[in-house]
């Protein structure tokens, strides 16, 4: 008796075997056909469930040996030696791959952030903040998922956590079971696409596309997909309110602290004017000035941030050219240092083609001043040195402020005025909640992403700094769970250390934005670094971070081993496939079909979609991308654009039954009467949206390609 779940797999397997058996020209097999046979066999072998990395390694080795042997006129010893060389070279190639190195770092960041335990805060604050939106709970779930999944990238953990937090909330509010399940599973998978995601690194490493470009390209499609999900939920909530009823009145109530409630009741509901009135003296004795000042500072924060950012931008835009040159030069100098050293581990007679990945990073941000800088640099290298030494007072007058700056400024100011006009105490409370959950995480993600996209740092560097950021977040949140006196005690040590650390950082920022003339002195920098190091040790002790770091470390090792060993296996396998000449046959066959680029694209995406059922995304990318990528130039398709479509496409693999793992994670934490079928049914509309998103991206490639094209001209 075979269980019905097995039938699906067996049928798939039988189809593949039958296709291989029929298509093979058994009477006159060439090595190339053998390569195709190997490809068919490997899919079947993977479906048997043996660890894929070793399936690939073993099969690759056998076929590589055969390929060498058939060329060597029976010198089996030489063939064996060549096979061994191939294996060890492929393995070493993965070990010194400077793209894959960012995987452990991003994974580490994800585990640290996951353990910071901010997801419940994030969800609660977002759901109150979004209370007025139709289907608010579902929308809040999607937004939480998008942010949290982006930061962690661990589908299982995000779906489980949201299943524990959001599913009860939605069910209690009378949401439809299927809609709730669909929202959680679809939202949990968003981290696969929205950068910084591991999938894009794996694709970049396989296809030789620069990771920053992929990140830039996937940014808007990721946001678009999340946006489409949210739009769908809002439409459903408006159209069929019984599926997603609006929040009840008590669900929306925000508790105000004593001080602000007092002002709210006696003086006025709007924060800004009433606080000023209260400060002037018209208030109850209960509230201290200190408390009022605190509220005032928090409410002023958006304005201050806006002014600082606009001020720095204005400074950067209008500063005279000579000084700009120095920073441009320095950036290039630093970058060229990277360029020189990056190849040092590569042995001179390397077998692989050097990937063009570094190219994206090296280009300076494509702004106007940077261009001028490089022109001026060529013309007069001496001037810059002089400009560096000259005091700022003798610098030439500032450039005129561009009009666009004033437009942005005006729009921003209007926005702020509107914001303060409707800024009530309730909203202040919501703002505070967001300040402690939503903003730290999104600022961290944007900082990591921003530095990569603008070419300020390589993905590896950004990932490492992101991991440190994750460590900081986790330790702060873990500290906050401790009793109050412990927090105060820790703060006495933490704050001075952070002040020392931040001195250099701000000094550096001000130096870069030309507010200060000289860079931070060396002793100050060293002091800052030491301060951070001491803080890290102190944080591990005081916030009891050791267990968190240890667990994250071990998990990182296991996840990296899983992905990178797969790379080891697949690089041996791909080498064997290339040796056998399978690629040539595939190419000839595809070209003989006389497809248009559109047809080819559809075929490729369809194959990937079908493979998404039995295989995981890692396997699909590392095994099949090396076959598709060489075909792309023949059809004039940009590998970058293809990668974006693949990334969107593989999203559906996570939601397609019967192997959608997101569904199983959700089932594991949902009440017993929620069936798998209900969850699958809930996922279907979201799968539909994913397909719409793929079509949208194909029809309007600018959604993905605009940002990389603008940034890396």
């Amino acid at each position, binding site marked *: 008796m075979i269980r019905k779940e097995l039938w699906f797999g067996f049928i798939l397997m039988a189809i593949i075997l039958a296709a291989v058996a029929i298509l093979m020209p058994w009477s006159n097999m060439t090595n190339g056909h053998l390569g195709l046979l190997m490809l068919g066999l490997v899919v079947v072998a993977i479906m048997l*469930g043996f660890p894929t990395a070793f399936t690939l390694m073993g099969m690759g080795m056998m076929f590589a040996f055969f390929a060498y042997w058939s060329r060597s006129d029976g010198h089996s010893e030489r063939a064996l030696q060549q096979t061994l060389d191939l294996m*060890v070279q492929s393995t070493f190639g993965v070990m010194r791959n400077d793209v894959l190195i960012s995987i452990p770092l991003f994974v580490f960041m994800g585990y640290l952030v996951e*353990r910071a335990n901010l997801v419940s805060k994030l969800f609660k604050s977002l759901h109150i903040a979004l209370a007025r939106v139709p289907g608010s709970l579902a929308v809040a779930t999607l937004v939480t998922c998008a942010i949290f999944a982006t930061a962690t990238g661990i589908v299982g953990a995000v779906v489980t956590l949201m299943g524990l937090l959001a599913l009860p909330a939605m069910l209690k509010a009378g949401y439809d079971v299927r809609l709730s399940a669909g929202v959680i599973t679809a939202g949990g998978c968003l981290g696969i696409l929205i950068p910084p995601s591991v999938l894009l690194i794996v694709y970049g490493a396989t296809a030789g596309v620069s990771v920053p470009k992929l990140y830039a390209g996937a940014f808007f499609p990721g946001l678009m997909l999340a946006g489409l999900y949210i739009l769908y939920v809002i439409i459903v909530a408006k159209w069929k309110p019984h599926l997603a009823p609006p929040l009840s009145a008590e669900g929306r109530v925000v508790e105000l602290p004593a001080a602000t409630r007092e002002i709210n009741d006696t003086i006025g509901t709007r924060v800004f004017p009433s606080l000023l009135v209260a400060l002037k003296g018209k208030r109850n004795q209960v509230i201290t000035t200190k408390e009022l000042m605190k509220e005032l500072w928090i409410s002023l924060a958006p304005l201050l941030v806006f002014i600082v950012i606009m001020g720095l931008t204005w400074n950067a835009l209008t500063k005279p050219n000579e000084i700009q040159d120095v920073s441009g030069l320095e950036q290039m100098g630093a970058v060229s240092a990277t360029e020189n*050293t990056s190849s040092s581990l590569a042995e001179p007679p390397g077998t692989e083609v050097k990937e063009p990945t570094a190219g994206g990073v090296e280009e300076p941000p494509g702004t106007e001043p940077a261009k001028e800088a490089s022109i001026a640099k060529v013309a007069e290298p001496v001037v810059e040195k002089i400009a560096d030494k000259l005091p700022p007072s003798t610098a030439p007058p500032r450039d005129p402020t561009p009009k666009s700056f004033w437009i942005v400024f005006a729009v921003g100011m209007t926005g702020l005025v509107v914001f303060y006009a409707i800024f009530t105490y309730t909203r202040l409370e919501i703002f505070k909640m967001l300040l402690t959950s939503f903003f730290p995480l999104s600022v961290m993600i944007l900082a990591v992403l921003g530095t990569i996209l603008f070419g300020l740092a390589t993905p590896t560097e950004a990932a490492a700094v992101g991991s440190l950021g994750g460590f900081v977040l986790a330790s702060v949140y873990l500290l906050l769970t401790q009793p109050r006196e412990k927090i105060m005690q820790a703060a006495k040590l933490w704050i001075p250390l952070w002040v020392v650390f931040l001195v250099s950082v701000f000094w550096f920022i001000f130096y870069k934005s030309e507010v200060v003339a000289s860079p931070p002195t060396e002793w100050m920098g060293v002091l800052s670094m030491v301060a951070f190091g001491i803080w890290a040790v102190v944080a591990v002790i005081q916030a009891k971070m050791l267990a968190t770091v240890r667990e994250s470390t071990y998990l990182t090792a296991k996840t990296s081993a899983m992905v990178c*060993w797969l790379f080891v296996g697949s690089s041996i396998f791909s080498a064997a496939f290339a040796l056998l000449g399978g690629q040539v046959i595939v190419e000839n066959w595809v070209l003989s079909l006389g497809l248009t680029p559109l047809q080819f694209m559809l075929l490729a995406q369809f194959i990937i979609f079908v493979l998404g059922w039995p295989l*995981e995304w890692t396997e699909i990318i590392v095994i099949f991308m090396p076959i598709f990528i060489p075909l792309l130039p023949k059809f004039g398709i940009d590998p970058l654009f293809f990668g974006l479509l693949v990334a969107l496409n593989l999203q559906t693999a996570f939601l397609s039954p019967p*192997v959608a793992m997101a569904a199983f994670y959700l089932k594991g934490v949902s009440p017993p009467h*929620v069936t798998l079928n209900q969850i699958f049914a809930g996922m279907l509309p979201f799968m539909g949206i994913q397909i719409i998103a793929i079509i949208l991206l194909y029809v309007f490639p600018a959604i993905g390609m605009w940002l990389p094209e603008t940034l890396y001209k």
Partner: protein
Amino acid sequence: MQKILIGVDKISTWVGQICAWSVVGLTFLIGWEVFSRYVLNTPHGWVLDAQIMLYGVLFMMAGAYTLSKNGHVRGDVLYSFFTPRTQATLDLILYFVFFLPGVIALTYAGWTFFNDSLKINEQTFSADPLPLYPFKFVIPFAGGLLLMQGLVEIVRCVICIRQGEWPSRIADVEEVDVAKLKEMVDVKDEDIAALDKYVVAAGEKK
């Protein structure tokens, strides 16, 4: 028997976990280098090589550790629906067909690769070079560990075929530890069970 199996598991785990800490080293090394290069403008040539080495050690040495925790990615369309006996039989055959030849070859090739490098005292190709042969030694070492762990897994398959169920492994930190996540967000099983009334009520309405 179980004692030996667990003993080998422990060795793989121990080595893997020690090398796992290199991710912390990697984080701080790059963090320091970023600060040093961008803020202080004093880049170090060897850091790039060192970070690649740390990364290589991290994932290579964790290979056996991951295998001992059954953590390598498997094609899961059929496997989890098989009975343990079928799983073990398939695994056993494939360990002999794919795993053993592949890993033995890799270990052997890695050993010669390392020895060639040691003979010429190979160094990295940069302004301030680091010795390269210890890094190459990682390949045979990781391969050997993996081989040992693979033999243990083969024994496990045999045990499973005889007994009809998989022998136990030592517990380890898991990526999705539902119990731990429940504790983290403070949700209890009763709370989840209590939710059933909403699900059932919604079902009855239709």
